Each structure stands twice: as C-alpha cells, then as structure tokens.
C-alpha cells in the first residue's frame, strides 16, 4: 500500500513543482526617478519597485549605503520614500564622494529579496547592479565595491 501511494506522489510532484516555479519570484526592479511618475522623486538617486509580492504594501523594505571612502569602509542607513503606488519607492542620496553601492533588502510573505546597486557620477549603474533572492551577504557587498573601475563609475 505504501508503495502504491509513493507511485502517485512522485508524478504529482513533477506536475505541481513547475507550477510553483513559474510563479514570479519576489525581487526588486530599479529605474531612474522618472519611472515612478512622481515629481517628488525627481532628485532621488533612483527608484525601485517590488515584483512578485502579493501584498506589496506589506513588504518590509530597507536600504543601506555601503562605501569605500579613502580606503575605509563606511555604511549608513538610507531613507526610503514610498510612492503613492504600492511597492514603488525612491532612494534619496545621502552619501558623498567615494565608491558607494546601495544595498536593498526586502521581505514579503516569507520570501526574501536583495539587490546591490552601485552608483556613479551620473546615478545608479544598471549594468553593474546585482539582484538576489536573499539579503546580500557581506562578501557579495565587498565584491561589488571592489569591482568599481578606476575612478569610479561614470
């Protein structure tokens, strides 16, 4: 009997697992401030939104700036401004000169998301940004700061 039950469990798993996999994962998407369609954000460093979160208004979001200033590591919590649209936020620049990357962390209904977004003279660097399904680790942040080109991103 036990063997008969097992025979049906495996095919059932093969059917349903892909269904769950196809559901959109919780993650971040970044853009220039114009994407938020909110003029209050026009001086923001960048805006971001959550995707794959069933109730975005209940997501817990935080942002921290990590940087290398004159060879010394520094970090500071950042103010994240919510938009009138659920799940859309702006990050206001509070860092100065040096190599800086903004680290985003989020949780939604038990799912985690993270992002490391390097910033340069002209704003966030989309091509160098990395996205994770977990909060970025210290090693990942270090790697991102070390990957800055000589003179920083333009």
């Amino acid at each position: 009997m036990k063997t008969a039950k097992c025979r049906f469990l495996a095919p059932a798993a093969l059917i349903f697992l892909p269904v769950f996999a196809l559901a959109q994962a919780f993650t971040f998407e970044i853009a220039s401030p114009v994407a938020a369609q909110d003029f209050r954000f026009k001086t923001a460093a960048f805006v971001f939104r959550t995707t794959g979160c069933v109730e975005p208004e209940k997501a817990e979001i935080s942002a921290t700036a990590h940087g290398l200033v004159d060879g010394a590591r520094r970090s500071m919590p950042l103010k994240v401004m919510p938009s009138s649209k659920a799940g859309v936020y702006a990050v206001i620049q509070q860092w100065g000169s040096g190599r800086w990357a903004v680290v985003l962390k989020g949780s939604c209904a038990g799912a985690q998301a993270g992002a490391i977004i390097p910033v340069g003279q002209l704003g966030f660097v989309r091509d160098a940004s990395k996205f994770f399904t977990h909060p970025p680790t210290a090693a990942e942040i270090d790697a991102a700061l070390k990957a800055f080109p000589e003179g920083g991103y333009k």
Partner: protein
Amino acid sequence: MNIREHLPLVEAPQSVWDAIEAAMREGEYRDARRRPRSRIFFAVAAAAIFFVAAGVYLLWVRQWRSQEQWIETSASTQTTLRIGDIGSVKLGPNTRLRVLADRADNHRLQLAHGTISARITAPPRMFFVDTKSGTAIDLGCEYALNMDDDGSGILRVTRGWVSFQWKGLESLIPAGAMCRIKPREGADLPYFEDAAPEFVQSVERGSLDSMLDSARIRDTLTLWHLLSRVAPDDRARVYDRITSLTPVPATLSRERALALDPETLNQLKEELAWKW
C-alpha cells in the same frame, strides 16, 4: 385766543433793511472768495491723482516691457537667470533669450538662439521654453537646450525629463537621452546617448529596419516614440520588437496599442520607463 390777531402792524425802519442788505452782500463776497480756492484745490487733487495713476501705469508698462526685453550674451560671457523660486537657467555664450512670463504658475522664456542649461525644482509644467521649432516643457528636470537661428537644435536631459512639443507632436526625453530639433518639424526621435553607434545612425537616417535590428532594451524609448510616427503597416513590427525586448503587462492590449489608443500608449510608456 390768538394774540397775533390783536397786535398792530408796524413798518420796519429803512435802516433795518439797509443792514440786512449789507450783511447779505458781505456773505456773497465771502462765498465768492471761497469758490476759486475750492476749485483750485479740486483741480490740484485731480491732477495729482492723474499723475500718480500715470506713474503707476508707466511703471507697470516698464516692468512688463522689461520682461520682454532680450537678454544677450557675447562670445565670451555667460549669465544665470533666476526663475522665480523654482530654479535657474544658465545662458551660455552667444545666447539670445527673453522672458515672456514670470508668474508663480507659469514661467516662460523664448530662446532665439544659443545654449541654456535649466535646473528646475518645481512640479511639472510650470517652466516652458519656446523656440522656433517647438516648446520644451519641464517635467521636473535639468537639461541643456542648444538652438540655432534657423530653428534647429539639440536637447539633452540630465535629470528628470522634458516634453518637447510642436504642433501636437510630442517627444518625451528622459535623463540620459537627447533629441535633435528640426526646423518646422519639432523634435526628432529621442534616443539614449549610450546607445550603440549603429542604432544612433539608424535613427538619424530614419532607417526602420536597422533601428529594429540594433535596438536594445533601453532603446525601447525610441521605439515607443516610433509607434506613432510610422505607417500603420510598420507599427506592428515596432510593437512586436518592443515586446520581444521586454515583456509588457498581460493587461496591455496589443490591438489598442496599434490603434494608438492614448491610454494604452501611456500605460506602455509607464511600463517601459522601468527599463529606461
């Protein structure tokens, strides 16, 4: 009993009448002396009011005219114009510009030629720059606008974005993008300055096939503008190229986009902006 019926009637002496007449003549004299003074007073008052009003009017006209006076820089000078409380405009060398309106809700300049760099902190659509080939409308931004005398020019946006309008044709240029302005045609297709050279060349040549082939995700800015500028037969190719580069919401109707439904196009733009 009525006493008056029993009193005798007596004629007043002539001296009484003479005294009364003298007193009346004295009163007329005083009135006659007073009348010229009051006339002079009112005349002076009226004149004063007139001159004050004229002065106020002339001051108002002068202020109005000064707003329309041209501001010009030479080949070796630059200047910065403060725009109310909402920002500033820097005039580069060889620039000719004037202020058409300077109200709290409407700041409007006219740029004849030269280069300006605007930095505006106001809500959208409060700052306008008229040119021979259209109007740049601030949507919350910093940008540089260079215009020649013939109405050709270049618009580059460094922060926020700008709407450039000419006879109903609108181009939206976000930060990092630019567009060429053509005389009697308005703004050409905007494109990001970091686009591949072959894409930029295809935009400038107006080569649709090359544009579609060489476009990357970020170039959907250009392709979105192209939707309303190509023939209906080509519109489907442009839309399908956009959706091949980046997914769009399932709720967005392809048919309505191809029909250039404004709400659908706006929804498409808002979604694509997350890639720009």
